[in-house]
């Protein structure tokens, strides 16, 4: 048996880097969240005051209410659409028309994912612009002036407009994940089900969805975490407005850090966000571990 001693030295560069960039700043952030600090001078220790202030802050609650909507737009809806698209592409298009056509469709759906999110924001900012935007121009040309709206500037529509953009952005990821997951499914299962008289929908639910459960968990968790972290699109499109209609925790923290010089308060927001994400990740790890145990049995 080879000796395992002496390998620890290879961890030194990575450990120093993680310490300086991740561990120390993370601990500092938590410490700052117990203080009142403007970013200059000495932080003043105020205990849990920032956290009790958060509980009474309408903007904080609005940002988390908006996140629920964004989780639907980035996790729930794309997963549902992605399941159907992936199953149709895999089980129907690839088999009846050809795998090249199926992968061409897959690439088309995936394309928005490769763009920098800030550029995504610019594209949609222009399309949805009330005065020179493409969408209102198209609606007006089609004689549907009544449907033209101030998509991002009106609090009634702003969050829904952002949601549509996020669904557009996100849908390709589950399609790609689920299509490769479906490759694991034994084709004989499908044949057996067909012989037993199962229709397409029954095969989809009982075989495809059931067999790619691990992929569905992964997609749901990673996209939910991505929704909690949304920043670039909001910064470019709405800056959280109008009012707090599209405010999200990350932009709320950014505002307190760099616009309002309320660093302690911003740190408290960031700490709460971190706790939620870590909790979700732990649940995710557990589900994955349980899946592996099942495979082993």
């Amino acid at each position: 048996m080879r000796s395992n001693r002496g390998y620890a030295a290879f961890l030194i560069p990575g450990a120093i880097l993680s310490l300086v960039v991740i561990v120390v700043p993370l601990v500092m952030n938590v410490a700052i969240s117990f203080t009142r600090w403007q970013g200059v001078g000495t932080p003043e220790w105020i205990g849990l005051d920032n956290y009790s202030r958060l509980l009474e802050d309408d903007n904080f609650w609005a940002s988390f209410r908006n996140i629920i909507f964004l989780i639907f737009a980035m996790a729930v809806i794309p997963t549902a659409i992605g399941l159907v698209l992936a199953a149709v592409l895999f089980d129907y298009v690839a088999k009846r028309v050809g795998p090249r056509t199926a992968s061409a469709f897959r690439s088309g759906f995936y394309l928005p994912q490769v763009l920098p999110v800030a550029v995504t924001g610019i594209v949609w900012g222009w399309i949805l612009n009330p005065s020179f935007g493409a969408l209102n121009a198209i609606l007006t040309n089609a004689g549907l002036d009544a449907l033209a709206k101030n998509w991002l500037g009106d609090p009634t529509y702003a969050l829904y407009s952002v949601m549509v953009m996020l669904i557009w952005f996100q849908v390709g990821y589950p399609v790609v994940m689920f299509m490769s997951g479906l490759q694991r499914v034994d084709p004989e299962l499908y044949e057996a089900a067909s012989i037993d008289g199962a229709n397409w929908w029954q095969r989809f639910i009982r075989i495809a969805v059931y067999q790619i459960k691990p992929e569905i968990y992964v997609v749901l968790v990673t996209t939910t975490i991505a929704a909690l972290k949304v920043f670039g699109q909001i910064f470019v499109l709405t800056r959280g407005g109008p009012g707090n209609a599209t405010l999200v925790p990350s932009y709320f923290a950014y505002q307190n850090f760099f616009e309002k010089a309320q660093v302690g308060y911003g740190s408290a927001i960031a700490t709460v966000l971190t706790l939620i994400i870590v909790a979700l990740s732990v649940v995710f790890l557990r589900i994955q571990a349980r899946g592996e145990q099942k495979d082993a049995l």
Partner: protein
Amino acid sequence: MNRAIRPAVLATLTVLVLLVLSPFALVALNAFKRPADYATNGPLSLPDSLYFKGLTDFWIRVDFGEKLWNSFFISGSVAVLAVIVSVLNAYALGIGRVRGRSLFLIFFLLANLLPQEALVYPLYYLSKEVGLYNTQTAVIIIFTAIQSAFGTYLLSSVYAVFPREMLEAAAIDGAGKVRTLWRVVVPISWPSLSVLFTFFFIWTWNEFFLPLVFLISNDKQTVPVALGVLQGDRLMDATTTSASALLGIAPAVLFFLIFQRTLSRGIMSGAVK
């Protein structure tokens, strides 16, 4: 029955994919339009003449060549450095199986999932203290740490199943640990490393939040930051906006076409073993 369904399925899919691609088409169509053409004919018409002035004016106004180079330099440096750090970490954890291995792996996984907001202010403060604020070096160091956290997690599972006979053969030939890493492990895992490199490059290229905070001078900014902060600029009109969007889209789509195979192989590998 299937014959009737087939055109319907294909037609529905085609409509859906065209909907997804329509923003790209709108941008491409209007980036080459004269502003007056847009005003009279709207966003759906073909340009009445190929007009490059919107693109070139915007390119000059933001010094886009400089922004491209900044993005390229930062993403390239991060990708190379983060692959190196990932390899070193994964060598110790996946092959060396050092003590506390699973704790390290959980740490790296969580480090990658952390919201950047939880790190940003201390990093901003510390970088000012050491004179690295508003430098590309700071951004490179930070992203090397963040990307290599993911790389370590992924590569450790690849190295955990590395063929032991290879390592033993190298040891019998008298190769030390450094030599074994460089001569045996790295060459054999080259495909995984190229997937990591591609991912790190594209992820760093697309980053917005930390570069926005750290790169405040115009001449240091990356493509997304330069374009992002211009949004809301009152001088922007429809054709300039689509010209700027086209310039932001073009490099990303180019990478997508170049790396398509690597990417689709890699998207999965991180998630489900």
